[in-house]
C-alpha cells in the first residue's frame, strides 16, 4: 500500500468533528489514522508542510456530467476527473444522461473502470431512474447499487409521470437510494430559454416561469411524504422551491437539496447584461435577483444541504453566437470552490465550516459514500486551500475539455492548491519533503 503521509501545520476545518484549528493529519494505507495537534508520525511517513493552508475533508461535487460514454468531445471521465482534482474535488457523482444512458450495471462498471484508469478524483455513478431516461420503466436499482451507483436520477429531464415517481420513491427505499429530481414541469417551461421576468420581456425571449420548477417540487414533496422515500432536489433555483423544501424538512420528511454556484451568484439581469451570451444559458435558468438572494439565505440558514456545480460541458462549437439555439449548461468543477471562497466566505455570507459542510460533509452523507470527514477511519481524501491565493478565471487554462463558463475573467481570492485522494497527492504535484 501507499506509504504514510502526514500533513503538518495546517488549519484543519472539519465540521464532522466540530474542528477548526491547528492540527496535523496522518493518512496510512489510504485512510485517515489520526487527526490532532502535534501528531507523532511514523519515521518513514512522507511529510507535507501545509502551514498557512486550510486542510479540509476532500470536497465532493455531487452533480456533474462527465459525458462519457458517448460525448467524449465534450468531456471524458479522465478530463472531468482531472478538472475535478484541479478544482479541489476529490470525488464527483456523475449523472446518467450519457450515450448510452447509464441505465444498466454495465455502464456503471464501465464508468468506474474509466475512473480507476484515470486515477484522479473518485467517481460515483448515478443511475437513471428510468430506462433510456424515457420515463416509462424503472431501471434495476438494486443491480445498479451493487455495481456502485449511489443514487438514481433522470437529470436533464424530470421524472414527469407522477405514478412512476411514486414507484421510484417507494422502490428506492429498499436500497436506501436518494431519488435526485430535476424538477421541471415541461409544459410550463415550454420553449422558454431564460427566466421569465422583466429581462426576458425586454429581450423578447421566451421565458421559463419559476412555477415550472415549483409545481414539480410541490408534487414531488407530496409523493415523498406519502411514500417515505428519500428525495433530493437537484439545482434549486427559486425562492418558492426553497420555501417548499423548508416546509417539508420541518415536517420531518427525508428531503434534501443542492444549489449551484451560478444560481447563488448570478441572476437574469446578468443574462441581459451579457447580451445573451450562450455561456449564460443553463437549466434551470438564472432566476431573479430575489430568487438568488433567497438561495444565498438558504445555504446560510441550513435549508439547502449542498452546493454542487452541475458541471455541464459543451463543446465551444455548440456555444457560438446564438443563445436560443445553444444547449443548456455551464462547467463548474474548476470555478466552484474559488467562487464560494471569495463571494460567500470572503463576503461573510457563510463561514468556512459551513462551506465545508456544503461541499463535503453533506454530499458524503447524502450519497452514503466515504469521505466528508478527517476523523480516524475516514477516507484519506483531503483538499488543501490557500485562502489568500488570487486567481482569475481563465477558461483557456481549464483541464476540462469544455470552456463554457459565465465567470470568465472573474478575479477571486481563495483557491485549491492540493488534492489528495486515498493518501495520494493528485493535484498539483505538491512539494513533499
Amino acid at each position, binding site marked *: 500500500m501507499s506509504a504514510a503521509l502526514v500533513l503538518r501545520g495546517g488549519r484543519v476545518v472539519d465540521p464532522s468533528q466540530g474542528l477548526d484549528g491547528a492540527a496535523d493529519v496522518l493518512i496510512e494505507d489510504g485512510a485517515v489514522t489520526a487527526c490532532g495537534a502535534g501528531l507523532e508520525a511514523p519515521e518513514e511517513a512522507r511529510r507535507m508542510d501545509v502551514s498557512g493552508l486550510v486542510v479540509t475533508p476532500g470536497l465532493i461535487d455531487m452533480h456533474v456530467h462527465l459525458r462519457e460514454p458517448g460525448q467524449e468531445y465534450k468531456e471524458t471521465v479522465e478530463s472531468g476527473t482531472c478538472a475535478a482534482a484541479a478544482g479541489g474535488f476529490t470525488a464527483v457523482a456523475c449523472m446518467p444522461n450519457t450515450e448510452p444512458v447509464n441505465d444498466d450495471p454495465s455502464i456503471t462498471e464501465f464508468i468506474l473502470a474509466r475512473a480507476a484508469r484515470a486515477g484522479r478524483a473518485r467517481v460515483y455513478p448515478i443511475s437513471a431512474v428510468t430506462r433510456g431516461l424515457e420515463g416509462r420503466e424503472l431501471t434495476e436499482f438494486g443491480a445498479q447499487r451493487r455495481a456502485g451507483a449511489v443514487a438514481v436520477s433522470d437529470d436533464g429531464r424530470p421524472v414527469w409521470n407522477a405514478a412512476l415517481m411514486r414507484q421510484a420513491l417507494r422502490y428506492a427505499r429498499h436500497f436506501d437510494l436518494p431519488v435526485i429530481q430535476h424538477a421541471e414541469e415541461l409544459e410550463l417551461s*415550454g420553449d422558454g430559454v431564460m427566466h421569465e*421576468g422583466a429581462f426576458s*420581456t425586454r*429581450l*423578447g425571449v421566451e*421565458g421559463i416561469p419559476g412555477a415550472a420548477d415549483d409545481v414539480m417540487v410541490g408534487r414531488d414533496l407530496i409523493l415523498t411524504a406519502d411514500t417515505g422515500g428519500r428525495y433530493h432536489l437537484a439545482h434549486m433555483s427559486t425562492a418558492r422551491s426553497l420555501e417548499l423544501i423548508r416546509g417539508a424538512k420541518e415536517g420531518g420528511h427525508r428531503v434534501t437539496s443542492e444549489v449551484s454556484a451560478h444560481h447563488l451568484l448570478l441572476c437574469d439581469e446578468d443574462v441581459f447584461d451579457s*447580451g445573451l451570451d450562450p455561456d449564460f444559458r443553463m437549466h434551470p435558468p438564472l432566476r431573479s435577483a430575489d430568487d438568488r438572494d433567497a438561495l444565498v439565505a438558504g445555504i446560510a440558514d441550513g435549508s439547502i444541504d449542498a452546493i454542487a456545480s452541475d458541471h455541464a460541458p459543451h463543446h465551444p462549437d455548440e456555444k457560438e*453566437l*446564438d*443563445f436560443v439555439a445553444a444547449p443548456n449548461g455551464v462547467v463548474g468543477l474548476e470555478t466552484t470552490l474559488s467562487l464560494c471562497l471569495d463571494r460567500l466566505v470572503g463576503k461573510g455570507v457563510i463561514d468556512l465550516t459551513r462551506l465545508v459542510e456544503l461541499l463535503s460533509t453533506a454530499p458524503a452523507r447524502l450519497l452514503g459514500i466515504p469521505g466528508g470527514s478527517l476523523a480516524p477511519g475516514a477516507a484519506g481524501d483531503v483538499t488543501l486551500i490557500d485562502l489568500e491565493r488570487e486567481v482569475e478565471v481563465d477558461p483557456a487554462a481549464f483541464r476540462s475539455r469544455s470552456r463554457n463558463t459565465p465567470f470568465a475573467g472573474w478575479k477571486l481570492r481563495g483557491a485549491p492548491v492540493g488534492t489528495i485522494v486515498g493518501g495520494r497527492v493528485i493535484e498539483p504535484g505538491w512539494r513533499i519533503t
Partner: protein
Amino acid sequence: MSGFRWQRGDLLGVAELSTEEIVHVLDTAESFVEVAARPIKKVPTLRGKTVINLFFEASTRTRSSFEIAEKRLSADNVNFSTSGSSLSKGETLLDTTRNLEAMAPDLVVIRHAHPRVPHGLAERVGAGVVNAGDGAHEHPTQALLDAFTIRRHKGRVEGLRVAIVGDVAHSRVVRSNVLCLRKLGAEVTIAGPRTMMPEQPEALGARVAWSLEEAISGADVIMMLRVQLERQARASFPSEREYFEFFGLTAGRLQAAADDVIIMHPGPMNRGIEIASEVADGPWSVILEQVANGVAVRMAVLYLLAGVKSGEGSA
C-alpha cells in the same frame, strides 16, 4: 442637423440609437421619398456596393422592401434565404457567417427567429449589419418607418399619445416602437389580452392598459399588431371571434380616440380579427403609406451605414 455626423456602422436595434440619430435617419429618409415618384426610380448612391439579404425566417414584405431600397440605391444585392435555421442543415451560424465574410459584402441585412443573432453577427463580420427582425426582440427599421409616418402626418412625435394593441409578448414591432417613440417624446400605451402580454410588461417602458378601450382613449395614433393565428393552439386566445369582440379595432370603438387619429398596422393584417376592414380601409388608415415609407427609410439606413465599417479599413 448642423454638426451631427453619422458614425454608426450597424443598425441592430433602437435600443442603441440616440434621439439625435433617430431624427437623422428620419430627416435623411425625407430626401429619398421623392425617388419613388421619379420616372426612373434609381439613384447611384450605392453603386458598386454589395448587399446580402440573409433571411433565416420567412418574410415577404420586409425582404421586398429592403430589396427595392437596395435596387433604388443601385447596390448589387443577393438574397440568401433559408427556411428554418442553418443549424438544421448541420452548419453552425458561425460557419454561415464566415462564408458570408468570404464573399466580402458591404452590408448584410439579417432576419433571424432568435434574439440578438444580428448583434453576434455584427461583432464577427466586417460588413455593416442591419437587423431586419430578431425574434420578438427588435425590428428597428419598422420602428423608424412608423415614426417617419407619424411625423409626416402629425408634424411631430413629441407629446403624441400612441396606443399599441395586440400580441405584445411576441412582437418585435412593439419593442422597437416603444423604444423609438419614447425617445422621440411620445406617450406610449401597450395593451392586449393578458395571455399575450409579457410577464412584466411595464419593463418595456410603456404605460400598460388592460383593455382596448382604455388603451385607445384619446389616442392620436393607434397601432394594431398582427395576431399570430398559430398561437391559438397555445391557448393565447380561445377563438378569433372572441379576440375580435374584445380586442378588434372597429369604427365604433374609434370614437374614443382623438378626432384626427391615424391607424397603423405593420402587416400583414388579419381583417376581422385585430382590425375591421372599415378601419383598415377607412380615412384614418395610413397603413399603405407605412409600406411606401418603408422603402425610403430603408434607403436612408442603407445609405447611412454603407461605408462606415469599410471606411475604417477593415477587411
